[in-house]
């Protein structure tokens, strides 16, 4: 019988001093590093309203697809995850495949946006964004790509405005909010959302970030930074690290009323799959989504468990439903090397066969 710990004392001292040396040297390498830019693929604003902007992303060549693709991101965090850095950019890869890509940048809500409801967001803002793209192309319907909460919004929108959506792609989208492994959902079940929103008004981004970090507290608050020490002498890797940190923590507050409804109706009531959801006065019936649907989810997603996304297949009305599982996490599905190789081509080919 041996001991499981076989740590040589001399090696231990070396390990400890090496860590401190790296830290000391890291101070020098960090000094003078500027905030890393996102990929900033060339883009043009084609529609603005209040704080939102619809951007048309410009590729090197002319798009080969006939139908434009509008990316609908979540209200939490920013859409620039899809264009994080030049060699890890979903939008850039979609452009290279031949897609004509637009995306909605929701902006940063403030006190003036406190009373925006889901109705305002979906039947107001999103509908007008879709109209703007439709009008630019003279089309009755366009393709939507909804991400995370934006995927849930896209599903609702498609159910309410079926004539304006040709094909729907959802990525890491929660549909069934009551799967047993959904930690976020579990935590909010006993939350008095009315008291929460009435007290806070808009929900501060820092509070949202804090909640996300506590999903894996040791890994995200400590181990990540311990591992960062090994990157300190590698400027490029440190830039990538800082860029991701920028994206994680540069996030908007949540408009109070929209947050209230999203937690109550989606997380607590699970109304999307129960078929009891209404937005404004419009009923949202997933059975009304008869367009082709491509549903992509991440197998190691700690924010949106795979089963929460898989549920879409059972509830959506379409006869043309494709489901793809990606080996990775909620963020890795956009920025990992594997994602660059696999996800954009899969989306493009699926769309092309329905263009």
């Amino acid at each position, binding site marked *: 019988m041996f*001991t*499981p*710990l*076989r*740590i040589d*004392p001399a*090696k*231990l*001292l070396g*390990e*400890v*001093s090496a*860590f*401190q040396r790296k*830290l*000391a040297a890291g*101070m020098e390498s960090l*000094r003078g590093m500027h905030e890393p830019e996102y990929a900033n693929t060339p883009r043009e604003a084609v529609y603005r309203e209040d704080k939102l902007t619809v951007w048309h992303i410009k590729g090197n060549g002319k798009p080969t697809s006939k139908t434009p693709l509008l990316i609908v991101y979540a209200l939490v965090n920013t859409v620039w995850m899809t264009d994080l850095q030049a060699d890890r950019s979903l939008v850039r890869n979609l452009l290279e495949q031949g897609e004509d890509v637009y995306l909605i940048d929701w902006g940063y809500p403030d006190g003036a946006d406190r*009373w925006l409801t889901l109705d*305002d967001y979906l039947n107001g803002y999103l509908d*007008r964004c879709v109209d703007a793209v439709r009008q630019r192309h003279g089309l009755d319907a366009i393709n939507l790509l909804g991400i995370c909460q934006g995927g849930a919004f896209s599903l609702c929108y498609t159910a309410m405005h079926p004539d304006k959506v040709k094909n729907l792609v959802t990525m890491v989208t929660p549909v069934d909010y009551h799967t047993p*492994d959904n*930690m976020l959902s*579990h*935590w*909010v079940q*006993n939350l*008095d959302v009315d*008291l*929460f929103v009435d007290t806070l008004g808009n929900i*501060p981004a820092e509070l949202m970030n*804090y909640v996300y970090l506590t999903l*894996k*507290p*040791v*890994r995200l*608050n*400590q181990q*990540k*930074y*311990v591992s960062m020490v090994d990157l300190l002498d590698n400027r490029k890797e440190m830039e990538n*690290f800082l860029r991701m940190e920028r994206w994680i*923590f540069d996030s908007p507050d949540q408009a109070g009323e929209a947050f209230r409804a999203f937690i109550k109706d989606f997380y607590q009531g699970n109304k999307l799959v129960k078929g009891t959801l209404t937005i*404004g*006065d*419009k*009923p949202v019936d997933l059975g*009304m989504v008869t367009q082709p649907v491509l549903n992509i989810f991440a197998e190691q997603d700690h924010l949106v468990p795979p089963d929460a996304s898989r549920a879409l297949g059972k509830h959506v009305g379409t*006869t*043309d*439903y*494709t489901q*793809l*599982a990606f080996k990775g996490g909620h963020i890795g599905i956009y920025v990992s090397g594997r994602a660059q*190789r696999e996800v954009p*081509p*899969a989306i493009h*080919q*699926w769309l092309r*066969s329905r263009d």
Partner: protein
Amino acid sequence: MSDHANDVMKQYQAWAQQSWDAWMQSLQRPASPFAPAAPASSDDVLSRAMGGLKSYADWLQAAATSGIAGQGQGDWQQALQQLFLGMGQPAAASPFMGAPFAGTPFAGMNQPFAQAFAGIDNAAAHGFAQQWQSWLQAMQPRTGEWNAGFGGDSPAFGYTRERQMQQQALLEAMREYTDASNRYNTLILRANADGFERLREKLAERTDPGRQIDSLKALYDLWVDAAEEAYAQIALSDEFRDAYGAMVNRQMHVRQLQQRQTEAWCRELGMPTRSEVDSLGKRVQELRRELRAAAGGAPSRASAPDAELDALRSEVAALKRKLSGRAEAAHAPKKVVSESLGAEAENKRKPAARRTAKAAPTRGTQRTRK
């Protein structure tokens, strides 16, 4: 460990302390009046990282003198317990404890998870604790007076009756929040203890040569796995859900009562209040909706005929699905095709649909047919 090794460690610790001081100074000001300050981005990251890194570095140092190294057939479990739980040590010497815990429920506890929670420099999370402390200090003369005079349970009366009642309600809400917070923290502490037990179990499976842990980083990573597993199990429990909800709800109640008192003071000073601004914002938003609807733009509210049409659409879709389900059951089972991107994909097409769906023929793609 030999005297020489101890001397080396002492010298090393002095040097390490200098390094930390330099890091902390670099966060506070530029190195020289002529050197540019570290940009905001790296400052932010360093601020966030600092608590975790400092705890980890302290833990490394504690490990170096703990006797965890060179364990032949010795009592590795005792050394492990000493290292992770710091039994019998003052909190200040604990690897995972530090300044962030002063004044928190974790103060005085050797508790790795506490760092993960309390070490984060987060205004939203810690602002409340600070706000609470300031509030208590500001209110101390009055609360002391009221408590002494009337007690929390005594009926309020006289000219200041309303104020007394507000204050009593706030004190009661704070007490309830403290209870709820303690309940939550107890679960976090349990997660930490469970994490240590899991670590011990994981290590017990690694006694074979070739599977042994040979570095502190490997030991730390194993502990993180164990701690996260233990935490996830507790965080998904009904007990945690109840405690979490209660803690947040109680905190919101305290904040709400504080806001009411603040608003009362603002009104006395003739200053606009948050409620008034909210009320104005709500009216503006309602006006915008009405204006847009009147202008014939995309209505934010469906008109009555629209709503009726939507309801009919839903009904027709439901009927169609029902009929389609019956037809399928009668004629053919629903065909399900599975395709994989990396690992798994599923393509569901009802028989009438065209069958053109193909997952992209990318690397790592597998196709299987159910």
